[in-house]
């Protein structure tokens, strides 16, 4: 006899214990654009709330940015579901325990609200057409609801990941929502800043929005650090997997470190260079935001595929490894 098993073989070691989500680029793009659309409405609402008079250009641009970021979202989700009519199944019931249900309803309502607020901006600026009163009332209602719906739309995608059995998502469940909301707000404010800079708005408008963008980026760095600390036991796919390069270089390096450095140095630059720095900063921030969602979705898939991670996560204590099988029980097959 030449072939003997020297030690317990573990034939199932490579087979995942849980199933990974099927999410790919469609959903990653939706997380990114939906996040910006929601956050831009949030920023528009906050701008009006802070100082309606002084921020009216900022709020207007934010509402238009939101509308255009929202437009591809339903298309992306319908492509993911394969048939348009399937999205209607989402609206059969409301389930507060399901982030997917909350998200679907929010997206549907937000679509109306964001459209209303964009229409209100474009109609309100010119007095050529006077729409009927009921129509104006609907536009006012939609615009008023949009910022709150925007917060939910921007942040629920974090909860969507958190409320799963996937170790790297579930472990950091309290961090991903704030991380997504903050990152989306940074992206949205950055876009608004660039549009204001390139348009004919007074420079102080863009400066104020830029100030908010800076605060959001710093907060994002802190949240990212907190989240990485909380998922330290499950961060292998983030630090060594397919997501590692984009996460390290695009999310952290290009998406946070560079734009913050640009923001710190740009006041010393001459005017045209400052405009270029703003546009470049926005491009980098958006790249970072997209890379963050890519990294999280891809790391989640790898985390789900890792049975060791799942067993550690479900062993009862977060750090201990599952007990190695002591197999007195194997006697029934022994001679």
């Amino acid at each position, binding site marked *: 006899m030449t072939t003997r*098993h020297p*030690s317990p073989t*573990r*034939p199932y070691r490579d*087979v995942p*214990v*849980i*199933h*990974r*989500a*099927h999410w790919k680029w469609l959903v990653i793009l939706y997380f990114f654009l939906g996040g910006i659309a929601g956050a831009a409405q949030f920023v528009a609402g*906050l*701008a009006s709330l*802070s100082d309606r008079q*002084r*921020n009216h250009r*900022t709020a207007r641009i934010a509402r238009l940015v939101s509308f255009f970021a929202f437009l591809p979202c339903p298309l992306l989700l319908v492509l993911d*579901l394969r048939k348009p009519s399937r999205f209607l*199944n*989402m609206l059969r*019931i409301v*389930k507060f*325990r399901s982030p997917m249900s909350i998200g679907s309803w929010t997206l549907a309502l937000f679509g109306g609200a964001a459209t209303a607020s964009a229409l209100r901006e474009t109609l309100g600026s010119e007095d050529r057409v006077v729409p009927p009163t009921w129509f104006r009332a609907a536009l006012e209602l939609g615009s008023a609801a949009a910022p709150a719906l925007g*917060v939910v739309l921007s*942040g*629920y995608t*974090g*909860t969507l990941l958190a*409320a799963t*059995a996937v170790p790297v998502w*579930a472990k950091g*469940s309290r*961090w*991903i*929502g*704030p991380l997504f*909301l903050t990152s989306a707000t940074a992206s949205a404010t950055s876009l608004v800043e660039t549009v204001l800079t390139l348009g004919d708005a007074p420079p102080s408008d863009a400066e104020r*929005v830029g*100030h*908010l963008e800076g*605060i959001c980026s710093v*907060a994002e760095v802190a*949240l990212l650090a907190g989240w990485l600390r909380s998922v330290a036991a499950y961060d292998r796919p983030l630090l060594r997997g397919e997501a590692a390069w984009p996460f390290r270089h695009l999310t952290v390096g290009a998406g946070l470190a560079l734009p913050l450095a640009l923001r710190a140095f740009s006041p010393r630059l001459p005017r045209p260079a400052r405009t270029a720095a703003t546009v470049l900063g926005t491009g980098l921030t958006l790249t970072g935001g997209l890379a963050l969602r890519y990294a999280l979705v891809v790391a*989640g898939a790898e985390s*789900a595929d890792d049975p060791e991670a799942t*067993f550690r996560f*479900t*062993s*009862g204590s977060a750090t201990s490894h*599952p*007990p190695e*099988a002591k*197999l*007195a*029980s*194997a*006697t029934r*097959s*022994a*001679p």
Partner: protein
Amino acid sequence: MAEPCHASPGTPVGFLTDTTLCIGCKACEVACKQWNQLPADEPLTGRGLSGLSYDNTVDLGAETWRHVSFVEVAAEPSVTHGSPVTAWLMMSDVCKHCVHAGCMEACPTGAIIRTEFDTVFIQPDVCNGCGYCVPACPFGVPQLSDEAHIARKCTLCYDRLRGGLEPACAKACPTDSIRFGPVAELRVEAALRVEQLRAAGQGQAVVYGDTRVGGTGGIGGLNALFVLTAPPETYHLPAKPALPGDRAAGSYATTLVAAAGIAAAALVALGPRR
């Protein structure tokens, strides 16, 4: 052989899969595929052979609702007189039909329902293939089917139950390793069997599916129970899974706190000049 059980609406029914009686014949897999008209599935390698002992279906999935795993373990030298002997722990895995099911909570369409038999069932005409139940199951049971692109899993033979028949897998099992019946009775049976196994020297015998092992963390127990003789991980089962939906409230709460923080920052950055 146990008496055939007729399920009556209102009484929770489920499985008791006693792994000590499983002989790895896969009659359950075949009966399940035949009754539910499920196609053969490609194993992970895509070449027809997985290389995992006698197991070529590898995992539960959209087209495999019963899966017999062949866990190869080395028997203790003390009982094999020093010679290395490989033994099999065989187990027929299936949907756990959780008391509080992660998939059902996650489902946004209401396609996943609890039937009159207290089983968890995916209505194929309502499922829209969003796929969220897939990562929300702590046991890796539901999966999206390739062609229809909807989530599929064990129905606990809902159609057979309605017709007064027991599930196909339990019917086909030649050793009664798979038993079907009212969950309350199965729980008692499982506890007795574990007691018996422990008395016979199987010190690690355990019921998988009560609120201490398998049905933990808000899941509230399983309606598909297992009798195991080694730690759950040996059978590729999580020891103490938790209900994923329980994490949603905390996540929403911290997101709202972040929103409040951003609002405060905006009032400073965008507010009137002081």
